[in-house]
């Protein structure tokens, strides 16, 4: 019970720590906004499908919303936890009466708070600066909510699992950032999904980002754009399935690799 009662204070502590990390703010929090500004400035003109044309900012927005979820979950937690292991902070926590449940609630809460702030900022910049029209249909926002939350949960667990890979806190960024960046290229974030070669699309579909991006396209793009998807439909059932599978994979890998107190054999 006390593990839960400490959670709000722990979340506040984690969020404060996140905001004070300059490089986290730049490479995790502001990254999608920076790319939205870059893309929308570089690629002028419009994208069209099925007779409907939209501004490029609208076209890139769903991919960048999905990328924000990936960065807030995977990149943020994988680097932060690897650094906590590397510099002895995790070991020190293990020596206090703080429950590991509180620790993880703090992490999940921090991810949720920062990801919501991040996507809010992204949508604000998209509408106010680039004139993107957001959907008004409540059903679309319902889709947004479940893709966002399910994707964030899966990415958080994958991030915890990935934190086991770097051999030291110092190498955490060098290990995690390339993985996350390549994933964004092959999942239709930087390069539009339908322009990717079929083999690349198939590889991308093995990972959660491509599915989150697809789900977000169904929210933010005109319905006629579904013809550009593989199979010619939004395929939200497949999106849900893929994210649930990654949620389970992330949970199992985290359980197997994470040690609160790393007692040797």
């Amino acid at each position, binding site marked *: 019970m006390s593990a839960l009662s*400490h959670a709000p*204070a722990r979340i506040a*502590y984690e969020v*404060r*720590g996140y905001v*004070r*990390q300059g490089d986290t703010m730049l490479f995790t929090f502001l990254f999608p906004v920076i790319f939205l500004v870059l893309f929308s400035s570089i690629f002028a003109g419009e994208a069209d499908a099925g007779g409907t044309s939209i501004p490029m900012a609208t076209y890139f927005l769903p991919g960048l919303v999905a990328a924000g979820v990936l960065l807030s979950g995977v990149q943020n937690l994988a680097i932060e936890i690897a650094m906590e292991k590397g*510099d*002895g*902070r995790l*070991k*020190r926590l*293990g*020596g*206090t*009466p*703080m*429950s590991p449940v*509180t620790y993880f609630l703090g992490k999940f809460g921090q991810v949720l708070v920062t990801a919501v702030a991040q996507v809010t900022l992204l949508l604000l910049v998209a509408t106010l600066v680039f004139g993107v029209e957001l959907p008004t249909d409540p059903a679309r926002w319902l889709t947004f909510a479940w893709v966002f939350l399910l994707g964030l949960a899966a990415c958080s667990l994958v991030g915890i699992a990935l934190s086991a890979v770097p051999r030291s806190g110092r190498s955490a960024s060098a290990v995690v950032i390339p993985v996350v960046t390549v994933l964004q290229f092959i999942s239709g974030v930087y390069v539009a999904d339908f322009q990717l070669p079929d083999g690349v699309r198939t590889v991308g579909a093995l990972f959660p980002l491509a599915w989150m991006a697809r789900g977000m396209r169904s929210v933010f793009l005109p319905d006629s754009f579904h013809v550009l998807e593989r199979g010619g439909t939004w395929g939200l059932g497949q999106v849900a399935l893929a994210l649930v599978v990654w949620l389970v994979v992330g949970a199992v890998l985290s359980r197997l690799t994470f040690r609160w*107190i790393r*007692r*040797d*054999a």
Partner: protein
Amino acid sequence: MASTPPAVVVDGLRKSYGDVTAVEELSFEIHPGETFALLGPNGAGKSTTIEILEGYRRRTGGTVSVLGTDPGTGGLDWRARLGIVLQDLPEGGVFTVREQLTHTARYYPRPRSVDEVIAAVGLESKADTRIGRLSGGQRRRVDVALGVIGRPELLFLDEPTTGFDPQARREFWDLIRSLAGEGTTILLTTHYLDEAEQLADRVGVIIGGRLADIGGVEEIGGVTSRVPVVRWREDDGELRTRRTPTPAALVAELSTRLGGEPQELAVTRPTLEDVYLDLVAAATTEVVR
């Protein structure tokens, strides 16, 4: 003292890593309220032992009890009664001294006042500075502050003053004495024999993973190792030393024989450091033999 159970009981402790045995047949007890120093050369098994007591490492054999609990299975309630100051120093981080202490204090049932602890470690002027911007010595004090914020019954200090300047070390000693004065049981490992001499009630010397000696600071090494040493310069210019249980008689004899004040006269009792080095040398010779 006989009526209260020991704070720490180590009985036949053994720890091996593969073929390498780090600790073997180690047994000692620490009484409540006592400051106990564990001494030994690098790699002797001090840190392995303290980390087993802290619940960070599993033991290979023997029994261990810390505040009546097996550290291998101790839960969060047990941890709330301990204070741990680890050997390696963390890099710091983005929180201020006060923020970190205030946050950590909330996990303990009866924490000390944050302001009192900040004052006790002498960081009043740095209370609102981020820990990452402090010097190594100041960060070590933050570590000690975090170790005592929960009002621990038992405090582990693993080489706490490494890298301190002499002034900081003396201030640290005062802090530890005041904690001991409040009844905190302290287990200290250190390389500085003067530190053990200043702080500890009893010391245990570990060499090669085994207990070489244990006893009061004034008793360890036995009576013979405490025999005073007289040093003087002879008329022929040679520097002489002699150990004798009756140094005054020797000095009187020298004074008569050499006529007046012997040059460079000194009478010293072996320090804990001398006794310790003799123990290590003796153990090393045994191994060589």
